[in-house]
């Protein structure tokens, strides 16, 4: 297993290099020079030149020890991404945003997974009945209604009209208070697609021979569902769950924006809007590294839950 992990970790080196090269090409060559935007209105060429010097935009792109690519590479490896356009260190922005983002996305994510998997088992068990049809219709409706509608509706009724939750972030609220409603909305909006996916997975398993055998032997439904079906459905569930975890880091733009949660979703979109490449680059790089790590974790988990999978 150790050899497998080391081998997989070595594979990540060219992947990370590729990500760095791609982000560099996108943000430096395609994105263009942003000195004029930093310089402000009626800036003189000298000011623009000074900004280029300060931010290193005047350095060679590739073939030099102090080239922009080497700096880009170094900043990624040391996690020192420099200062954003508003002169705040990028890493400080990320550190500040990661807590609120995870406080929103982690409970939301686990809420969706736990509820969707449980309901999918139930719906799969009740397949063909009116409950299955109702669940399916609700899933399709949940997937078809725009995300924004859920937010507007939830904020209007639950927060403003009925006063069950705060409308917006306020400094005198604790985190659980101001993330509760967005989490609830996130869970409701995420249930449709997830329930449909897990239902399909469970139905595939329910049709398998071993399920019929288990029922034929006289095992009760609870035991068949939770001990046998759930265990055998773990591979697709793990793939879906573990690979989604790195994206939790990116937060949720709309929920953060509407509820004033100062997370990373907000930060990323704002950085894109203002062409703050240092922030975009840092976020892209960290997301890519997390994705690679969680991909590895997924593979290890496969072996843990399924004895047929080996590290060889």
């Amino acid at each position, binding site marked *: 297993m150790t050899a497998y992990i080391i081998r997989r970790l070595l594979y990540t080196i060219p992947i990370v290099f590729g990500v760095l090269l791609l982000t560099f090409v996108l943000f430096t060559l395609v994105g*263009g020079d*942003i000195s*004029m*935007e*930093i*310089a*402000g*209105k*009626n*800036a*003189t060429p*000298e*000011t623009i030149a*000074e*900004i280029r010097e*300060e931010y290193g935009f005047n350095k060679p792109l590739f073939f030099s020890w102090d080239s922009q690519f080497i700096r880009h590479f170094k900043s990624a490896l040391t996690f020192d991404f420099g200062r954003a*356009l*508003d*002169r*705040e260190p990028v890493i400080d*922005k990320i550190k*500040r*945003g*990661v*807590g*609120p983002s*995870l*406080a929103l996305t*982690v*409970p939301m994510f*686990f809420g969706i997974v*736990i509820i969707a998997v449980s309901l999918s088992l139930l719906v799969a068990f009740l397949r063909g009945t009116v409950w299955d049809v109702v669940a399916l219709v609700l899933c399709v409706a949940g997937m078809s209604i725009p995300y924004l509608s859920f937010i*507007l509706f939830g*904020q*209007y009724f639950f*927060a*403003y009209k009925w006063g069950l939750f705060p*409308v*917006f*972030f*306020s*400094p*005198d*609220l*604790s*985190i*659980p208070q101001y993330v509760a409603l967005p989490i609830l909305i996130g869970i409701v909006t995420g249930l449709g697609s997830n329930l449909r996916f897990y239902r399909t997975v469970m139905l595939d398993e329910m049709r398998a021979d071993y399920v019929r055998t288990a029922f034929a032997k006289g095992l009760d439904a609870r035991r068949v569902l*939770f001990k046998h079906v759930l*265990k055998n459905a773990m591979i697709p569930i793990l793939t879906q769950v573990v690979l989604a975890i790195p994206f939790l880091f990116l937060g949720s733009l709309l929920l953060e*924006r*509407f*509820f*004033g949660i*100062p997370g990373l979703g*907000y*930060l990323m979109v*704002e950085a894109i*809007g*203002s*062409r703050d490449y240092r922030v975009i680059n840092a976020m892209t790089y960290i997301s890519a590294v997390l994705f690679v790590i969680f991909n590895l974790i997924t593979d290890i988990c496969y072996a843990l839950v399924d004895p047929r999978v080996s590290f060889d």
Partner: protein
Amino acid sequence: MKYGEKIAGVAVTVLALALSGCKDKGPSEGPGEMVLHHALNAKIKSLDPVFIQDEYCLTVCSQIFETFYQYHYLKRPYQLVPLLADGIPEISDDKLTCTVRIKKGVYFQDDECFSEGRGRELRAGDFVYGIKRTADIKTLSPNWTYIENKIVGLDEFRNYTKTCKNAADVDYSRKIEGLQTPDDYTVVIKLERPWPQLVDNLMADVRNAPMAKEAVDYYGKDIIAHPVGTGPFMLKEWRRGSYIELVRNPNFRGEPYPDEGEPGDAEAGYLDDAGKIMPFADKVVWTVIEESQPAWFLFLQGKLDAKTIPKDNWDEALTASNELTPKMRQLNIHLLAVKDPSTFYLGFNMQDPILGKNKTLRRAINHSIDRETFVKLFFNDAYDIAHGVIAPIMASYNPDIEKMGYSRYDPDRSKELLAEAERIHGGKIPTLKLAMQGTSTFYRQFGAFLKRYLNAIGLEVEVEYMDWPTFQAKVNKRGAQMFAGGGGAGIPDAQDFLSQFYSKYWAPGSNHFNYLNPEFDRLYEKTEVIPDSPERRELYRNMELIVLEDCPAAFLDHRVRYVLVHDWYKNYKPHVFAYGLSKYRRINLKKREEYPKLLKTLEK
């Protein structure tokens, strides 16, 4: 342990870690504490005056930093009065030397950058230091152009900073002939040539506020988050992108509330606090709320003291005749209409081979747009139609400008002009491209509106919707053929409107039209050295007529802001040029406390 329990255990651990990863609680409002609650539409980028570029930073920084002069809070027309200065500036007969004396006993807030953490007394040198920072090219201040070529020796100082390798190498003790401090309470400014906006632009603009060198040295690049000023409030907490909280500065000397205003102010209650020592509030809190729906809900819940009316809530707040709805009246909400010093337009790139050389075509477009319908459709008939470039609240506004007919909607005349324009062009006008500075519904509707009117006279238009940075880059590179934009004035002087047409400010400067008219330039340079007078106002009007005649833009509207204010919010008189206004405002705490009861009663 079973799988299910293991998974649940991991989930709970991750959840606990996520929740513990954030600060748990912010400050709360103490009993009897007077807190002003405001909303900001955008994030604050910096609290360092030299980096201020937008009204949000200006708003917050103006509560912390002070200037030599400020605009009178109540009097109209707007007039400057001393703030840190001890009296009016002494200006020499040749208008080239200005002497300002500053008040004694003004102290910076306590901060660890000072010896023993105690704020020291303000000195004349702090003002000079602030200006030098803006001039220092290593600071990368975007505000240099406002003071370029104005003060004797300052441009040489900037050139000297260019020769320094690092920011730390710049010697701030170098003397500048035009910025002298004969003693700690006197500043003498020598100008290259007369500068009529000297007091407005240099001494009443918080971008040039006095700075404590100790603070800049102590905090280095992090000075953007550690403002150290002399103003009525000081920073307590800034959770970037989320909220900012200021508290009273205990070192603030106290300033009396104005005891005179304009007619009607006494009746409106604006003089109830005359002579009382400010500030009244204990805290000022700004929450960043970029979406209009939550801000509107918070205002109705009484968690914001004032709010401009969002486009989507117009019908809930105002009737068809722009008066408060019964619901707003029952909530004791007041309405204030504030005319902005702003002008929005459809701009033409004068360097474009089709539009630039064809004035008749530009005029055809100008007369093809129905501004009345535009204002009705997009702004509930609440904005003013723009008949020229200068906004109506400016003293140099030409009251006869409407009669001159430059803004007249005349599709028949437009068609005639277009026929003539096609003859000049030598054939049918090719499809024109219109750049819009946003992709939101508003910009899509706005683009569709302009396209419809241009199509109606026979012009083909392709509307390009883009985000703000892309739009800015396109205009700065002079690549936009037509573009929807706008501009405003930061001081009560129309120069800010007219500078957009000065040829030395071609894009990437503020002249996005790349407009050039030697006669306009000559008059502009003439007005630069003439103090405010009937003569200068007349020159401004003449310059406006030159622009209207050349038609580098079709002017569309002037913004009017409709603000709703809760009745507990006192001394809320709109002011379009001043920003440090929290010191004047007061809360009737009893009324605010009773508001939830009122809401419940009305709901029943």
